[in-house]
């Protein structure tokens, strides 16, 4: 069942190659919410097809249809000219479609050879694994991607870029002629990106079709032959690389010039330059996700930090709050060193943190008031708890933040997501922090709740709290921030203090 690498499907009809994948007029909706609208899409043999668009624009829905994950949709899909209707991911793999996910699925404790043949080890008579055959085949497969590796090496000890190539070789081995790569460069250093591109060009030369999904427009422009742009569930452009540049792509992504300008498209920054810094982080690095991040937070100012997934936002927020160790750099709070060993120490120093995932923050089965009071217990109680006082505090914040329903004793899990987020905020307002760190404060909220949260955050700013908002959504940053840092691969690549900033500025910087 091993597919030789050079098995390119080079059907030529009237001098033109029939596409490996061709989707015509494909639509998909989830319970009334449209995810894809009348999309045409194709991949030719020997082509790298770049795919860009904001989060939620429809890219992943399209890829899941191609990979057989979504079985029901409208429209037609052809693979190598033949109409298909996949019922499962297995069908798609059998039809020669492979996918390399952003989150790698290699097993770190197994060897290179074992990973390449994961689940499909070649066996000899009697079901005994053919180790020597497996190793030599693995070596050949990896070598064809330009890697010279001992197949006995433990995968966990290799750099992420190499792990990714191993996963790619696994997909190739399964006989894939069309390969979907989801954000393949987000975790890679520049030399690793270069090595990946060498391997991808090699595959292209062999006649494979590659779909390259990425937020990194520079990478897309470097490697792609054609680029397709998605916006709001529609394909808005498919153009050859030669006729595109970064500005044009961003224009397609956000629909510049159209009547679609609304909240969060632009922001006028107003950093408080003369004010001294409350918290200063200098050159924070952890040897993996952070490569030297420096920021200044000031009283009464909202600092926005924008970056793509995997840019280090999550790690940086935790590093400030004493939850993520770093090996280089220092943090000072009001001039004093503030390298917190625990979250408890960070809280005592006046820091507060609301993580991106509410489940990390709240106690679902506990009543609302206990969720609100947890961070203030040591202030209102010396030894004994005072539940009535806790309820009074909770009631005050429920009213202030308009939490619905306005009850203190129902389990938190029975509130809606937006209201849970407000409870997460209320927790820190019981004990007014000096610095409030908010990771993705409005993600997944309905419009009303979003507006409430934005209003609350701005009120806190006006009361003098220093706020750091970290988000992968440009709208959130543009709506809130007085000052913006753009984070890319663990480094601050841009700092914006004044003037008008647009969404395309942010996308171009990241």
């Amino acid at each position: 069942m091993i597919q030789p690498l050079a098995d390119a499907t080079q059907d030529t009809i009237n001098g033109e190659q029939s596409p490996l994948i061709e989707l015509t007029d494909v639509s998909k909706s989830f319970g009334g919410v449209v995810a894809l609208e009348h999309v045409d899409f194709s991949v030719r043999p020997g082509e790298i097809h770049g795919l860009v668009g904001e989060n939620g624009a429809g890219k992943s829905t399209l890829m899941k249809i191609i990979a057989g994950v979504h079985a029901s949709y409208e429209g037609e899909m052809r693979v190598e000219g033949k109409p298909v209707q996949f019922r499962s991911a297995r069908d798609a793999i059998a039809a020669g479609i492979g996918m390399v996910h952003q989150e790698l699925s290699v097993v770190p404790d197994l060897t290179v050879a074992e990973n390449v043949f994961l689940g499909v080890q070649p066996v000899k008579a009697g079901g005994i694994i053919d180790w020597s055959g497996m190793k030599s085949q693995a070596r050949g497969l990896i070598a064809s991607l330009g890697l010279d590796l001992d197949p006995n090496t433990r995968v966990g000890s290799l750099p992420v870029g190499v792990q990714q190539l191993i996963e790619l070789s696994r997909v190739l081995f399964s006989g894939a002629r069309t390969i979907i790569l989801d954000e393949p460069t987000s975790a890679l250093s520049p030399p690793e990106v270069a090595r990946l591109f060498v391997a991808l060009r090699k595959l292209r030369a062999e006649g494979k079709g590659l779909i390259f999904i990425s937020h990194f427009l520079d990478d897309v422009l470097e490697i792609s032959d054609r680029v397709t742009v998605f916006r709001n569930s529609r394909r808005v452009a498919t153009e050859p690389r030669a006729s595109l540049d970064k500005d044009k792509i961003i224009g397609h992504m956000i629909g510049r010039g159209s009547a679609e300008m609304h909240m969060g498209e632009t922001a006028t920054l107003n950093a408080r330059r003369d004010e001294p810094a409350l918290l200063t982080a200098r050159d924070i690095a952890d040897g993996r996700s952070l490569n030297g991040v420096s920021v200044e937070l000031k009283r009464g100012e909202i600092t926005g930090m924008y970056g793509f997934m995997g840019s280090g936002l999550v790690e940086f927020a935790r590093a400030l709050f004493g939850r993520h160790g770093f090996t280089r750099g220092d943090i000072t709070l009001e001039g004093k060193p503030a390298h917190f060993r625990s979250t408890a120490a960070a809280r005592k120093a006046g820091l507060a943190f609301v993580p991106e995932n509410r489940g990390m923050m709240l106690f679902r089965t506990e009543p609302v008031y206990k969720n609100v009071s947890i961070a203030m217990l040591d202030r209102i109680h010396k030894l004994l708890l005072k539940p009535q006082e806790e309820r009074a505090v909770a009631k005050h914040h429920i009213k202030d933040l308009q939490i619905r329903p306005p009850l203190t004793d129902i389990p938190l899990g029975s509130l809606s997501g937006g209201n849970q987020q407000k409870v997460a905020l209320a927790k820190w307002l019981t004990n007014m922090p000096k610095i409030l760190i908010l990771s993705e404060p409005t993600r997944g909220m309905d419009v009303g709740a979003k507006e409430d949260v934005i209003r609350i955050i701005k009120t806190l700013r006006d009361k003098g709290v220093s706020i750091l908002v970290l988000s992968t959504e440009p709208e959130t940053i543009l709506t809130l921030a007085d000052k913006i840092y753009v984070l890319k691969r663990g480094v601050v690549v841009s700092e914006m203090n004044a003037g008008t900033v647009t969404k395309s500025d942010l996308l171009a910087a990241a």
Partner: protein
Amino acid sequence: MSSAPTADKGFNPKQVFADKLRTIAPLLTLVALVVFFSSTTTTFATMDNAVNIIRQMSITGIIAVGLTFVILTAEIDLSVAAVANAVGITVAYFTLQPDYVNIANIPLNGWIAIVLTLLSALAFGLITAFGMTKIGIPSFIMTLAIMQIANGVSALLVRGQIAYIYPDFITTLGSKTAFQIPLGVDEAGKALFIPVGWTIIVCLLFFIVGHFVLTYTRFGRYVYMVGGNREAAEFSGVNVKLIIGSVMVISALCSGIAGMLGVAYFGSAQQNQFDTYLLDAIAAVVVGGTSLFGGKGGIGNTIIGLLVLGVVNNGLDHIQMDSFQKILIRGLILLAALVINVYVEKFRERV
């Protein structure tokens, strides 16, 4: 104006019931067992036997209080029985033994012996806490190692011998009667009493203090929060490691005190005499409805669990049956109680 449409549901009675079910289910199990043994035997349902059951469970009860703290944080302590044994032997080791007991021990003043012995219990707890929070060893493995170490300490101190003498205070608490319940007079005109031992009083004291700490103090709230969602507790600025370390120390101290009273209760200090207490204590906590996944339950649940266990252990002795079958039947009853516990957990998650 701003709340999502799904948010405006009020109090959910089904959910409240599901929460209470955690306590209701073991309580019903207890009632069913009492009714069963009362109706099938004549000797079970007497005042005398009731006090007997409580006395039999009081040493386990002290251990179970500490274990409740541990299980509420979603950790486990497998060393409780071994620590109880080692500490019980330690207190005898520091007491002058009769000539025929051939142990090279260090006799001390009774109170000094008690203090030193308590420090040894504290040491076991601190080592466990250190291993878990500083080194990062999971509680299951860490306490398994401590169990073996404590057994080793027991073996070295008595070297196969049996000690009989303890400080007076310990002998009193472990084996003497605190007061007597008058039961009137018998036909011969002699007054009848039921003796209530000090172990019962001590155990009640542990229940009260344990319940008080868990329900009314900040530390207790943190214990529930760490068990309910450890990550959330950490992100709320709770010092999770301090809480975990503290519950392991509390558990070791409870086990140690239970061990001291236990050797006096048994009348002898020797190896392996607490072996059944590990399973009994864990079973009592879990059968009572405290979640092994942490965050739910409490001392009230543990008391119910202890009574269920006590009634099963004691009731089976009143039934005419093959004593070898009893062990199996006891296991089956515990399994049934645990199955109910898990179903309650699932039911609670669904609503």
